[in-house]
């Protein structure tokens, strides 16, 4: 079917079966490859995007559910995402880097909903994202750091 997807503020008119998972519409049809495939079954978070601000595993919802909603991917930007990027760089977080798109999007959602997340809050949200390289300690630190950067900037 023909449908319109709004990704990072830009409208894309695409043709895709409505049951195609959003992940593959973003990667293979629109051609934005920053959103990653890791498991396809809602287990690893590599495919995380924000759908109208809501943290979503794009591998596990059909593209039809994203119509008329605003999609934020790692290629996009938001205030919190920028604070996180800064903290990620300061902390030299990534190793292979593959999971980090999903980690950053999940962390953005965490900061969007929780002003000053505790370790426990971080565990709750970020445990949906696997990092096989094991950068968890740095991710946790970087999230706290992003909050600090944010507070300084106000």
């Amino acid at each position, binding site marked *: 079917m023909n449908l319109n997807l709004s990704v990072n503020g830009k409208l894309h008119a695409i043709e895709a079966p409505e049951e195609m998972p959003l992940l593959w519409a973003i990667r293979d049809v629109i051609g934005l490859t920053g959103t990653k495939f890791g498991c396809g079954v809602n287990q690893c978070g590599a495919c995380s995007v924000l759908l109208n601000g809501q943290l979503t595993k794009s591998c596990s919802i059909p593209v039809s559910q994203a119509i008329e909603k605003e999609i934020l991917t790692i290629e996009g930007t938001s205030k919190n995402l920028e604070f996180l990027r800064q903290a990620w*760089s300061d902390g030299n977080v990534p190793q292979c*880097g*593959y999971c980090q798109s999903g980690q950053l999007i999940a962390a953005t959602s965490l900061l969007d909903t929780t002003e000053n997340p505790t370790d426990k809050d971080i565990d709750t949200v970020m445990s949906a994202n696997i990092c096989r390289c094991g950068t*968890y300690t740095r991710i946790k630190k970087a999230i706290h750091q992003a909050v600090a950067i944010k507070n300084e900037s106000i």
Partner: protein
Amino acid sequence: MSTIHKIDRRDFVKLLGLATGGIVLGCSIGTDEKNFIPTKDSKGFHPNLFIHLEKNGNITIIASRSEMGQGIRTSLASAIADELEADWKFISVKQAIGHEKYGNQNTDGSRSVRTQLTPMRKMGASAKMMLLAAAAKKWNVAIEDCSAKNHFILNKNTQESLFFGDLVAEASMVAVPSDESIQLKDVKDFKFIGKTLKSVDLKDFTHGTAAYGMDIRLPNMKFAAIARCPVAFGTLKKFNKRYAEEVTGVETVFELPRIIPPTGKFFGMFGGMVVIAKNTWAAFQGKTNLDIEWNPGANASFDSETFKKTLTSRVHSTGKLVPGGHGNVTAAFEVAAKLIEATYHVPFLAHSPMEVPNATAWFQGNTIEVWAPVQDPQTARSELSHFFEIPEENITINVTFLGGGFGRKSKSDFVVEAVAISKKIKAPVQVVWTREDDIQHDFYHATSAQYLKGSLNRKGEVTGWLQRVGFPSIVSSFKPFSEYASGFELNQGFTNNPYLLENFRLENVQAEANVRIGWMRSVVHIHSGFGINSFIDELAFVAKKDPIKFHLDLLGEDRITNGDSAFPFYSKRLKNVLNKTATAAGWGKKLPKNHGLGVAIHYSFYSYVATIVEVSVLNKKVKVENIWTTIDCGLALNKDNIKNQLEGAAIFGMSIALYGKISMEEGAVAQNNFYDYQMTRMQDAPNIHINIVDAMKEPPTGVGEPGVPVIAPAICNAIFNATGERVRSLPLSDLGMV
């Protein structure tokens, strides 16, 4: 010998993808020991390391290594930048393509840093000397009156300075300094080496712009998924492709015959049924809809639980004697005050890097071009040349970013698949594995059984040590029916046991392979590290001694083994990391209720590692609270990267200890995806404290792998400390402990 040359040939510069103009220096390095792959034309100059200085001051380093998460690109760049006195912001790194001209590109075995450090430093130093000479000529002063600092050459007499970029034209006329004349900096003057440097790829990693294998897009590229027989080496019996072809986006479905590798080398591929589609999802859907009947073949009845029992009974009776033992254990056992026995198990494990195996290929009659996340592009290229009968010079392997490798991506079966399919459909194609494919068709880390028997005298000292080990050999993937471990495998912690043992006997038992076996991050050290450290802890307990003191005593007097090799073993350095870790962890301190500490040490990839783990155990559930690891890896090239690697190794080791288990039933792998092959997650992650020993005068040794083998035994020893219960068979999830 590594000689540095100026590269003037324009075609070469173009091949490297560099802008013309500026200086290109290349050098050809002979790598260490076994791993040197000689270039065909031994007389010709085949550089494999390059730096390019441009007029705008930019310095590009062409690294002949796959990235795979070790930050190696950054480490090697730091060596050049340091000697060159460059400003870090002008440095960028490019990945060389897999071409013989660039030398051996295998990243396995933590040896990259080891073999390339000095040549890298010399490259930087040569470039600096050329810039100095150019400046001296311009100012008409002696070279000694000039010095380099932060991308400028300074005139000591006049305090004038010249920007590197402005000297490039003149410097390119200067002869390359001879090897003897190259002076390297003193350790204490390092600016980047041994310091905290950020990855050169951070911007791409945080914006989703790093191109991994799966991110390659070519015009008219097709996507392919492959259904492979659930039982290793099974074949296709019959199939119905109708429902697959009905999927929107699916174009064709066909059979892909297996490619059997020749004995002794290469990996070949399984073959199966291929679905070609317009996008990845349609290919996956088509694959799901295939109706296939397989001939499972010889491995149809393989059951990993039964195999565990078989291996156990084999290690419980005499095996094949492994050379290298000494003394007489039988005699020692006869007069022992105490005899202790234990049997340990590690299951099969899958690598499961976050990025599944995938490759993009374009077969065009007499050339092949590949874009893939490969750890060993060189072997991939030889393999393709062999199977598709295309000369190697007509094959280009573009190494993309790797979303993790851990050894999986040095086996290029997925590249062979992509090329075979592209050849058949006459179009560029990207083969993508599903996570299920990855978990069910890996080159598995072997399962193992070990039996240990030790004797103590009245003073609680070890008098005899018998160890029997059995695990399917990696060699079986190259030579069918290899049923005993090879020497290089046993030399990963078993034969080179670091303790001073008076009576020591090692035996190896038969272990046939019924799945593909491969090497995974730290390889056989996972077994040796687990068995030996667990057993020492048991001995210490029976001897009523503190485990750390027990390790130290058993390491004996300071001594050097393999003194004539490039990397001798110093027992002192192993003791040192152990002592440092004990201090860091506060060994001996009073612990909260239900908490326990466990220790393990291991020597691998020439690095010395000790780890202490603190666990808490509540209602039989284990939580890892803290991990302290100390490494002595010689010259620590990029400390923050080493720290990152060791933190990662702790998490990787935790996945092995807590969850890692692949099992086979009726020949097929029982696990599917991350819900039943679980990984350590954020909620499991402990506080990790890494300590790097300052051994700047020693040559650099491995950092990617040595942090892994210590984790599982230290966790199990900590559990014993907390509960009095021994875990001898991994993983904890099997025992309901997580």
